[in-house]
């Protein structure tokens, strides 16, 4: 409404430039984080072109240089490896740890949520109660417990985080299905002979999908943080591969002597998390808010 008021010129016409400015202002909240996220993806994809040094090879002669040292813009770690190169290369496993579990959880959670919503009372209760059990664990603890069962690596990170995130998605999907399952168009589809699967895929999925998409996008930041946390605990990508959480752990002993270098992985994860969450929030606002604060709270 403000757009119309400020945009209307004295002659009652909407000047194109004013409209465009208003639209830009409205979109800035989405475009800025989206651009930053795209930049991040670009860094991950183009890591070999961007990184000035080999991320794994170091030289003990240049151990623990402070940021700004000649030749090493962000300094070097305890093994003399270039921190900038490691941060750049680490974007790959770290972003995979942020994105893949969310994608898996979104798919599995939607399927479970729809199955619970459209199945009989017994199926519904059985599914929801089983998900409640997973809810009874604080997220990172459940992820830790599952990850300890597997050899440390990106696979353990992805699988354990998928299990942690799936119940939350399933709950959102189930809420959405429960809202529409008595709708007349579903009844009409059933009466005209559509089977359960057809109703689920053709009638219910299109309604649930955008909500899940918005919700899942807001989980990516959390997943990045969890994935790095698992690596920090030694449950993720094994050394010497560069990964943000593992770098945090690598540089931890140098914190008291070289705080300038040691805080860099921490800062990187913080910034990436803020970017992902801002983007997720903006997407949720745009695609349609589920309004489900309780579901957000259990992330």
């Amino acid at each position, binding site marked *: 409404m403000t757009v119309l008021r400020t945009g209307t010129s004295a002659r009652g016409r909407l000047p194109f430039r004013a409209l465009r400015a208003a639209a830009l202002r409205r979109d800035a909240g989405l475009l800025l984080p989206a651009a930053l996220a795209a930049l991040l993806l670009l860094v991950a994809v183009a890591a070999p072109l961007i990184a000035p040094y080999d991320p794994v090879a170091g030289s003990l002669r240049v151990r623990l240089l402070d940021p700004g040292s000649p030749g090493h813009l962000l300094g070097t770690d305890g093994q003399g490896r270039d921190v900038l190169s490691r941060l750049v290369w680490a974007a790959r496993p770290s972003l995979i740890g942020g994105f893949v579990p969310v994608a898996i959880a979104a798919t599995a959670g939607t399927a479970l949520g729809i199955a619970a919503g459209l199945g009989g009372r017994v199926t519904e209760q059985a599914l929801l109660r089983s998900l409640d059990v997973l809810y009874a664990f604080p997220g990172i603890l459940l992820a830790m417990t599952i990850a300890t069962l597997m050899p440390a690596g990106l696979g353990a990170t992805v699988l354990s985080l998928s299990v942690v995130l799936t119940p939350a998605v399933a709950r959102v999907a189930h809420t959405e299905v429960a809202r529409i399952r008595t709708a007349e168009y579903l009844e009409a589809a059933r009466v005209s002979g559509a089977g359960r699967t057809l109703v689920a895929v053709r009638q219910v999925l299109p309604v649930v999908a955008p909500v899940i998409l918005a919700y899942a996008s807001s989980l990516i930041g959390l997943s990045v*943080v969890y994935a790095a946390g698992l690596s920090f605990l030694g449950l993720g990508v094994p050394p010497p591969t560069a990964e943000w959480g593992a770098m945090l752990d690598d540089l931890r002993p140098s914190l008291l002597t070289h705080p300038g270098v040691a805080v860099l992985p921490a800062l990187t994860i913080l910034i990436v998390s803020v970017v992902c969450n801002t983007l997720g929030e903006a997407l949720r606002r745009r695609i349609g808010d589920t309004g489900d604060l309780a579901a957000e709270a259990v992330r």
Partner: protein
Amino acid sequence: MRRFLIRRLLLAVPTLVGVTLVVFATVALVPGDPVSAFLGPGAPPQAHQELTDRLGLDRPLPVQYADWLTHALHGDLGTSIAGQRPVDQLLLPAMGQTLILSAAAFTLVLVGGIVLGAVGALRPRGPLGRVSGALSTVSVSAPQYSVALLLIAVFAVRLGCLPAGGTHDVFGDGGLPDLLRHLILPAVAAALVPLGLTAKVFRAALGSVLAGDLADSLRARGLSRTAVLRHCVHNASPALLTIGGLQLAYLLEGVVFVETLFAWPGLGHLLYDALTARDLPLIQGGVLVVAVAFVGVNILVDTAHAWIDPRVRSPR
């Protein structure tokens, strides 16, 4: 009210059974033979057989589960492999330390979350509201380990005004002021994520009440701004209770990192040590205790919710 409580407690039973199943499965499902893993290569077959017998690992899984559960219910969670001490003896003092840290962090969460959320709700479009919104988002996004490292780098290393870890100075009389000084940084690091979330939820709840019919009718009756606000805060408080309870659980999650980085001898630190040593009984016991505490907190929150909001009491 009593019916609600009984119903809620009964509902928790299957959840708790599920929790014990999952925790038990973490050990039962470990790939490979835990006995050879513990004894290492080159152990005589006798020793292997002896340990298998002692741990009862050759019995069927359901029997092992029943046995483990019976012991757990009696407070016997087995013996820590790395520490060679009963797990419950390790867990109990650690729980006390975690409680101290959580209480301090929870205070920050409530005070900070309410102030930040109220500012946002009262000035939703103004610059103050924008700043509070941005602060909440950054706060929610700030991983505990990042915050912990940054706080140590700034306050302990650069400025040197606060201790970087531990609960008390090594030399000194100890006492409460010393403990509080050591609490500040870990409590802030643990509090930020739940603080931001509380602020967001409280802002949304208070904002919708302030924009609703209740606030309109109070204003129409000529109540002062503060009186209107008081009624509205009262009305928005159930949301605060729910989210506040959930934040307690978050704190339990965040302490793994915070306690490890600040060398705070609590549950999280213990779990980290157990994890690095692959000390399965200790991991199992710690996770079980935290999960049960989590379920307990949820029951408390639901009960308190039903107590202040009669609509929740009646089953659907």
